[in-house]
């Protein structure tokens, strides 16, 4: 029986932790500590997120008026392309796995580190090289193909830096593959004694499923981009119809990865939400096995639905029917998660702290994003909606409303563990609400715009669409403020924040049973796990009397 007070007072002695274990630049750049690598990812990924955000702001400013006045059409093409490339390949895909997953998976399963710490460091460097190459290309003049690199935009008709950006994404892809490999092996072999598969936090299950997609999908986009690059270099037609190639083949290969890739983006977010919903309801999650297996099901079915991106691009109707059906099928495991989270909230003792506000926001926004996905998965309706703002809105509801919000919730939730400091709860709540309001104001009008027929990827539009576009741009400003605020108060907390106790919310997870920040080896001694995940009963070994007094909750 472990006393919570004892954990609480643990920080007073200030033993050496992973942050104080060496201060030199070398001790960071050559570190093999998964926690330090996670922090290095956090810094770089945040920079990419801000750059992608600036592109987004430029897009919204341009769309304030119907004319293309701020940007020429050609420049606009580059701006939305680069917004997409930076956000997808350099923020959405690495953010939760490489930052939170890297930091937490070994701790959550009671391991000292990932199975291959050097490989982990290598993936950070690959990310840096890929990112640097892409940034260089963007500064040289950028790309205007759309983030999808569809041929022949990316072959015959493009004089922009497709090769360099493609190579950047290719290298970055291997960073993703190696991270996935590391996670799979770690989860298989590094679990502490007693940490059985069904005692693992659902965050770990979600990352296992994500890693499967990274391993199976990313190599396909790697070879596709490689073929595209050689095609541009040698002028031989594999994908370019002008010289004998097949552009539909490119789309098949591209979406074979890039559709599962949206599950690389959202599954870790769902893992975070499972943690938040259960822990902030102070209740064992409802339907643990169903949520765990739904992650795997999403990973499997996610590979069978890529054709729904190609309903109107020359794919046969019969293939379309099958893809449409499978798209409906893949919605089922997502729905299973939603229902289980809702059931977890039922009769829970809910704490409305900042991370939980994000989690509840996620549930609302992901619901809308997911349901509109079904609209787009139906072959008939999509003829009307394809390539309109409806698609843009759907995608952003899932990716920003889902992944980004889950990421922010996760960063707030584990901030005390990662840095040993408490952020301002007041400002945290304000910003969570601003993000929620700003997000909806930005993207909900786009559903209407798309339904009315406003096409995406144009710098100008008919005047009747202006009102809704102004709403959208106004919402983007609110969203922008909501996203900048955490940067300020989280940075502020690093210096002026209160020291965090080991277990600020009195939660049962393994990560809360070591110091904040954890020592380099994560635990003083390898823990022996005797409790289920999210166990708020006496079985968890925590002194829950204390928790009852502190939170006035019934457990």
């Amino acid at each position, binding site marked *: 029986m472990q006393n919570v007070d004892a954990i609480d007072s643990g920080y007073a002695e200030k033993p050496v932790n992973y942050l104080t274990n060496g201060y030199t630049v070398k001790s960071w750049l050559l570190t093999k500590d998964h926690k330090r690598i996670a922090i290095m990812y956090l810094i770089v990924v945040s920079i990419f997120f801000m750059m992608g955000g600036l592109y987004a702001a430029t897009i919204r400013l341009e769309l304030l008026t119907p004319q293309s006045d701020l940007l020429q059409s050609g420049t606009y093409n580059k701006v939305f392309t680069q917004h997409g490339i930076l956000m997808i390949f350099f923020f959405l895909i690495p953010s939760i796995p490489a930052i939170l997953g890297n930091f937490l998976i070994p701790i959550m399963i009671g391991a000292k580190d990932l199975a291959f710490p050097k490989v982990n460091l290598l993936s950070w460097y690959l990310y840096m090289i890929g990112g640097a190459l892409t940034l260089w290309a963007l500064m040289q003049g950028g790309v205007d193909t759309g983030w999808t690199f569809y041929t022949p935009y990316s072959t015959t008709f493009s004089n922009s830096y497709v090769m360099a950006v493609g190579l950047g994404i290719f290298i970055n892809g291997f960073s993703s593959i190696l991270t996935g490999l*590391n996670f799979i092996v770690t989860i298989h072999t*590094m679990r502490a004694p007693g940490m059985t598969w069904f005692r693992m936090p659902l965050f770990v299950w979600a990352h296992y499923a994500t890693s499967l997609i990274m391993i199976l999908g990313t190599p396909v986009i790697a070879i596709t981009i*490689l073929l595209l690059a050689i095609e541009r270099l040698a002028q031989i037609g594999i994908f370019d119809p002008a010289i004998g*190639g097949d552009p539909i083949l490119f789309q098949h*290969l591209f979406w074979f990865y890039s559709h599962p890739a949206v599950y690389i983006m959202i599954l870790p977010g769902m893992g975070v939400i499972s943690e938040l919903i259960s822990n902030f309801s102070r209740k064992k999650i409802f339907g643990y096995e169903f949520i765990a297996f739904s992650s795997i099901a999403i990973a499997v079915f996610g590979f069978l639905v890529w054709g729904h991106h190609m309903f109107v691009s020359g794919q046969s109707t019969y293939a379309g029917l099958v893809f449409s059906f499978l798209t409906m099928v893949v919605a089922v495991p997502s729905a299973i998660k939603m229902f289980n989270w809702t059931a977890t909230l039922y009769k829970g003792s809910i704490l409305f702290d900042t991370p939980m506000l994000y989690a509840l926001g996620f549930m609302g926004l992901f619901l809308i994003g997911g349901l509109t996905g079904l609209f787009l998965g139906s072959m008939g309706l999509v003829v009307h909606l394809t390539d309109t703002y409806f698609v843009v809105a759907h995608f952003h509801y899932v990716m920003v409303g889902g992944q980004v919000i889950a990421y922010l919730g996760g960063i707030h939730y584990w901030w005390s563990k990662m840095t040993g400091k408490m952020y301002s709860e007041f400002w945290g709540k304000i910003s969570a609400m601003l993000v929620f309001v700003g997000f909806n104001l930005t993207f909900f009008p786009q559903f209407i715009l798309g339904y009315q027929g406003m096409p995406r990827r144009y710098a100008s539009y008919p005047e009747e669409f202006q009102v809704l576009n102004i709403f959208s741009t106004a919402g983007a400003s609110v969203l922008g403020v909501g996203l900048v605020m955490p940067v300020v108060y989280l940075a502020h907390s690093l210096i002026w924040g209160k020291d965090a106790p080991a277990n600020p919310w009195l939660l049962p997870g393994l990560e809360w049973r070591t110091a904040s920040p954890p020592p380099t080896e994560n635990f003083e001694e390898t823990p022996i796990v005797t409790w289920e995940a999210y166990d708020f009963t006496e079985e968890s070994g925590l002194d829950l009397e204390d928790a009852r007094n502190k939170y006035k909750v019934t457990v």
Partner: protein
Amino acid sequence: MAHAVDTHEHHYHPPGLQHQFEDMKQQEESVSIGMWVFLVQEIMFFGGLFTVYLVFRSRFPMAFAAGSNHLDAFWGGLNTLVLIVSSLTMALTVYYAQKGNRNMQVILIILTMFFGTVFLGVKAIEYTDKYNHGTVPVDGWNKRIPEGGTQHSSPAEHSTLTLPFETKASAADAEPHESEAVHPNPQGRFRIEDKDLELVKQAQEGNYLTGSEKIGYFSNGQGSLPNGQIDEAKFRDKVRIFFWIYFVMTGLHALHMIIGLGVMLWLLWRAWLGSYTAEYFSPVETAGLYWHFVDIVWIFLFPLLYLLGRHFLHGGGH
């Protein structure tokens, strides 16, 4: 062999054990699973290429047969044999590592590397042949043969590249083939030969062209040429796709071989130092997995690139 490891003693830290693992068993298991997962991603990586191959081959079998005929099944077969033997020596390396026999490990690793190098050497001969015959699919990257020039390969040199295992039909073709080889190519362009077009004519007469071929070889966007004439440029583009796939596939495979040789060099050094014992041999096993994988990729590449479509040479119509 130098250190007898007692893994039963609790606080003993075995030499090769990394800090993140509890014991050697956990480390070996991790390394082994890690390599298998890596190979899965390799399969998907090559899988994309095989998909591209399958799509284009099923559409344009004649163009692929024509391209295939330019490859030499003798060299391809020899390389297959070489790689299979290298897999044997690799497997034996693992066996002797498990036995803790340092000398046999060293000898077998050297043999494995030897066969790997032979493979790459043969590949270099083949690539040179493509260069000489204008079948590198990038214009300007082939040997430049001026008008009436003498730089073309001599018949004697060429025959060393074709014979031993050549089929009767292609031996019969050898004469016109030779005369094709002297055709000037001052720009170093990719080019095809009359015998390649013969295949299409055969298929046209035998009525076994695919739908894609009927469009792909005979019309150029402005409609079909008169009298069912083949549009040579269109057909050439399709053969070029074959060679493009050939070079990408075998090139990436060769790259994997080169990386494999690097791994073997490291393994050789460690084996020479006697690092691998009956208790600790997982690096040998893991490197072996990789080596076998690269061999298996070739086992698929060989029939797809060299053999499929050869029956059309015999007049596939009957």
